[in-house]
């Protein structure tokens, strides 16, 4: 959505629509401590029709800036100083009545998650009409409804759906509704806070294109807040990088991405995975911008070893019972199907089941990493849940190490629950906040190893060091760690019983770019050292391309394509895979 006149630099004599000077935002500490400074002395201008990207990692203060521009902070707990001039009006210190006129009128917001940001209790037409009537009190209901219908039509939603509720729309459609609502009153400034982060790549592209079109039509100035350099690269004229609430650097987007001046920006740009990075290489991070570590080349399909050497595990925890009779494959899934009971219309009618997974066949060799790719609702998580023993399949066979893994046998389940471990997406929700790291790591050791209490603690310390955290942090609680550190704890927990297969469901998609790079580096290192096989579930093709040996693509519960990484990315077989790849670029 780059504006044509700003391609060769900024428009010359245009008065900026938005002028921010020395903006500082401080949050009072509810317990009476020193206030927390979220934004420090930020200054920037935004001209009509210009798109500025505001980029930073979580905690950088980027969303705080967006909210401050509309005066949405609670004045009782937040101190906003400096100057925000929107279209000639000073907003810092302005009264509620002035701000109410600005919000939704001259400046509008689009938030990340349209499902939670739109009212679930009102029809979308009513929500759009309300936006119009708030700023055009003289307009009648009929006029407002007519305009709402026209605006919905403009973003590609038939007016017949005016009375529908947000939950009846798909994610992309909901975000279109959100955008339509923001543009109801033809605002001068649009603040879009991560507008496409919650969407699948294909839909993300469509929504960004629509936003660009509308922005050009209306000549709206846009502040695009994002953590995703990929989104910023394709859509903004200029980019401002934010760290700890202060500007790191600001430049025309192309320039900034091609030749970042500051080390932090360089690391951020380097850490962002693109589809042309070298697969399996160590990724640069903010702490280590030019990594020297080399990973061994991954085995190819032809020369895949039957059973890689597994370090540091022979006999040390006394694995008993079923030892691996490993053949060619560690996991074999054949014609797997999972159906969920459908909703019944009347008591007498038979319900049509929801076919979440239908006829899926997969194989994973020992030590191999299989990427499972698909959009939300494609059945990839359900498939991984079957492998983890958390979901009973409706049909098909699942064999682990040559044994039928779906047999209801306590012994077998116990053994599998040791062999197969899980790493989850959300590092905040997947650790019990009331248990220390030592307690979290102790449980799998107690259940699956014969170690005594002292030995278990020793082993927990070892595990923690293995994932790059100091052993001294054993007695801390999850809230004392950052998101990336928590994900490391989750990985340590998965490694504790020495599994041969780790199912990782979107393990890095909730993390910031630089943290994502660190965790991927860790996973690559552990994979090389321990020879663990991975089922890596992800919607992010760049991550999958970097980390996985083979890739399986799922679409609407079916397997569309399953092949080696190179073949998939260079010569995709199916139309759907090609579309996915195109959207990721």
């Amino acid at each position, binding site marked *: 959505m780059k504006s044509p006149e700003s391609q060769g630099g900024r428009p010359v004599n245009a008065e900026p629509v938005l002028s921010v000077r020395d903006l500082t935002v401080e949050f009072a500490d509810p317990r009476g401590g020193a206030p927390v400074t979220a934004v420090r002395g930020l200054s920037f201008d935004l001209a009509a029709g210009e798109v500025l990207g505001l980029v930073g990692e979580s905690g950088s203060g980027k969303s705080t800036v967006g909210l401050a521009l*509309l005066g*949405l902070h609670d004045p009782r707990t937040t101190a906003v100083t400096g100057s925000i001039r929107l279209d000639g009006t000073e907003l810092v210190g302005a009264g*509620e009545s002035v701000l*109410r*006129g*600005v*919000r*939704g*009128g001259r400046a*509008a*917001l689009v*938030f990340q*998650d349209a499902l*939670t*940001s*739109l*009212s*679930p*209790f009102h029809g979308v037409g009513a929500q759009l009409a*309300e*936006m119009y009537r*708030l*700023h055009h009190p003289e307009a009648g209901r009929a006029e407002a409804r007519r305009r709402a219908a026209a605006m919905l039509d403009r973003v590609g939603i038939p007016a017949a759906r005016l009375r529908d*509720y947000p*939950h009846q729309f798909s994610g992309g459609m909901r975000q279109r509704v959100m955008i339509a*609502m923001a543009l109801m009153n033809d605002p001068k400034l649009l603040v879009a806070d991560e507008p496409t982060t919650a969407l699948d790549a294909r839909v993300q592209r469509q929504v960004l294109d629509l936003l660009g079109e509308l922005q050009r039509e209306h000549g709206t100035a846009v502040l695009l807040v994002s953590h995703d350099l990929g989104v910023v690269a394709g859509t903004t004229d200029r980019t401002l990088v934010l760290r700890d609430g202060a500007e790191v650097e600001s430049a025309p987007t192309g320039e900034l991405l091609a030749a970042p001046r500051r080390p932090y920006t360089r690391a951020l740009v380097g850490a962002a995975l693109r589809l042309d990075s070298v697969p399996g290489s160590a990724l640069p991070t903010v702490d280590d911008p030019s990594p020297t570590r080399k990973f061994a080349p991954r085995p190819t399909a032809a020369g895949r070893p039957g059973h890689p050497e597994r370090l540091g595990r022979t006999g040390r925890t006394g694995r008993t019972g079923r030892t691996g009779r490993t053949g060619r494959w560690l996991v074999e899934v054949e014609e797997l199907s999972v159906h969920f009971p459908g*909703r*019944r*219309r*009347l*008591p007498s009618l038979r319900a049509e089941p929801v076919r979440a997974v239908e006829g899926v066949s997969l194989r994973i060799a020992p030590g191999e990493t299989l990427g499972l790719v698909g959009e939300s609702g494609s059945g990839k998580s359900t498939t991984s849940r079957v492998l983890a023993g958390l979901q009973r399949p409706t049909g098909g066979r699942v064999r682990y190490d040559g044994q039928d893994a779906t047999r209801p046998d306590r012994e077998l389940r116990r053994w599998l629950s040791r062999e197969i471990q899980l790493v989850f997406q959300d590092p905040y929700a997947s650790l019990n906040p009331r248990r220390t790291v030592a307690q979290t790591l102790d449980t799998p050791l107690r259940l699956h190893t014969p170690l005594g209490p002292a030995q278990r603690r020793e082993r927990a310390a070892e595990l923690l060091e293995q994932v790059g955290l100091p052993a001294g942090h054993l007695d801390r609680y999850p809230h004392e760690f950052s998101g990336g550190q928590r994900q490391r704890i989750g990985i340590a927990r998965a490694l504790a019983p020495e599994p041969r297969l780790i199912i990782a469901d979107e393990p890095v998609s909730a993390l910031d770019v630089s943290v994502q790079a660190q965790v991927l580096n860790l996973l690559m290192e552990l994979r090389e050292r321990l020879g663990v096989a991975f089922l890596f579930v992800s919607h992010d093709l760049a991550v999958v391309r970097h980390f996985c040996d083979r890739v399986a693509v799922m679409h609407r519960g079916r397997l569309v394509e399953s092949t080696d990484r190179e073949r998939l990315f260079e010569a995709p077989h199916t139309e759907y895979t090609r579309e996915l790849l195109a959207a990721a670029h």
Partner: protein
Amino acid sequence: MLSFALRRTLQALGVLLAVSAAAFALFYAAPADPARAACGPRCDSGQIAAVRQSMGLDQPLLAQYTDYLVGVVAGRDVNDVDGSVIHCAAPCLGYSYRLHQPVTEALTEHLPVTLSLTAGALAVLLVLGLGTGFVSALRHGRRTDRLLSGFTLVGASVQIYFLGYLAQWALVYSTGLLPLPSYTPPGEDPAAWAGGMLLPWLVLGFVNSAVFARLSRSQLLETMNEEYVRTARGKGLGRLRAHLKYTSRGAAGPLVQLLGLEAGVLLGGAVITETVFGLNGVGRFAAQAVSGQDLPAVVGAVLLAACFVVLFVALADLAVAWLDPRIRLD
């Protein structure tokens, strides 16, 4: 919707059946003899046996229970203590040998008092509970909030018989600000009806509002941080209007559920309140029936109370589904 109504009706029938069976069985497990109680203290064993036979108490328990159920559906003829036959029209909840009157008829006489008491008390409860909850949430953590929290804590901790007598002494006997609580049918004299019921309404409403105030406060506080409320503010709605239109809607679900339950329970009879203020409602009727070992009256009152609870809980579910389009009733 159709399947919801169907399922709920079946469920209600099941509940009522279970409740009536339990009430029946419990009463027979008790040591007292209903025939002796009905006959009076001066009966000899021959007379008691005759009464027992005319009351049908010599029949097996199961037969008595089926007779009862048939009567509820179709009505039946019953024998009084003296052997005279009385027709008891459907829904026949049995015949009270203490009052010499069909139970349905006796309950119908007492019901208007309980209906009046409940309606007024619920109104007080809603205004007080929602009001304090809303103001507390808006002024969260500040002095008003703490003051109101203390106020509702008083309501939660004080007993009706204490507060009732206290208020009656202060407002009626000492100062004459309010008339003595009594029930006048609203059709006869609306002013006397409202005046006589005002004190019971206030006391019963206040005591029950505490839970409501606490729940509405915490519900509102939770919903205030919802993103759609932020969106509403971003549209240009003022703080109060955003909370009234969006926050309240989001917070309403559990409050409606609680209100439905509360209404059902109160309609089953507020024994203590009715006793304290001398109101002759269903609650007092039930209490007297229990102490008089009037089996049919007790079972009738219990069934009526269960009916109200089941009905109002179902109504609350309907209301919640109407408030939130994401909920589907099937």
